[in-house]
């Protein structure tokens, strides 16, 4: 009588090749998504903090400094201290005087998040995802007369 074929070991083989084919890319996808999401949340928080800092500052120049510091701090809090970031501040109706009454300030944060596990050999920023966020905050219509700005 022929011996029935033994199944021992086949589970391991299946697990290994399917794992390589399905689970590893999926886990990488999940890790990448988490990272990009962390970046997106960080950009949101940074834009919010920068907008608030800018609006509370007495004039445009110190507002700009405060906004940049707030954005950098917010990104650092989310573990993104090293990423390149761009803070752009604009306002309507008069872009030159953001701290006058009835002006609406818009802060835009653009950052780049590196993808996980990309070899350094490929170069810096070889695989990066851009995240951005925009925050709009109105200055009150009533601003004390004689306040700088």
């Amino acid at each position, binding site marked *: 009588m*022929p011996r*029935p*074929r033994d*199944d021992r070991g*086949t*589970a391991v083989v*299946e*697990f290994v090749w*399917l*794992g390589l084919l*399905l*689970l590893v890319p*999926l*886990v990488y*996808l*999940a890790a990448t*998504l*988490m990272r990009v*999401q962390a970046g*997106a*949340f960080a950009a*949101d928080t940074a834009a*919010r903090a920068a907008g608030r800092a800018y609006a509370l500052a007495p004039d445009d120049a110190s507002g700009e400094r405060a906004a940049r510091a707030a954005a950098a701090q917010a990104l650092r809090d989310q573990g993104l201290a090293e990423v390149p970031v761009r803070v752009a501040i604009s306002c*309507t109706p008069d872009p030159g005087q953001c701290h006058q009454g*009835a002006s*609406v300030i818009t802060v835009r944060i653009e950052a780049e998040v590196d993808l996980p596990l990309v070899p350094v050999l490929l170069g810096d920023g070889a695989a990066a995802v851009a995240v951005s966020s925009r*925050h*709009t*905050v*109105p200055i*009150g*219509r*009533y601003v004390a007369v004689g306040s700088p700005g």
Partner: protein
Amino acid sequence: MNRLRRRPRDERGATTVLVIGFAGVLLALVVAVVDGSAAYRQRQSLTTLAEGAALWAADAGAQGREVYLRGVTDAPLEQTASAARAGVAQYLRATGAVADHPGLASQVRVSGDRVEVRLSAPADLPLTFPGLDVTGRVAATGVALVRPE
């Protein structure tokens, strides 16, 4: 034929089902997390918008008949409902909110010295489960009043 029937049940392929099941669960989790955080970011954005609109509208509403008749004291300024409502509409137009959030609906409640703006928009979910139609609205509220100092 006879020999085939006597062969014990083959277990090859069982792990494949298991691994594919794992992958499916992982994929579902990824979809849920991505959609959840997209909805959260959308709410953040709506909150910013609602707060800005409320502030803008409270400023606009504090310029009406009530303030002229009752004068300015230390108490928050009385709001003129029609002016506040017009302020919300103007702010939403000026910030391009409708383009950012298609299907945006706004609800303004003016009570005495308070302006409350409630914004809602259909949830913009980037991923969907195949065969599952998930719809919902994201809403945010902002309140403002004008207090002379």
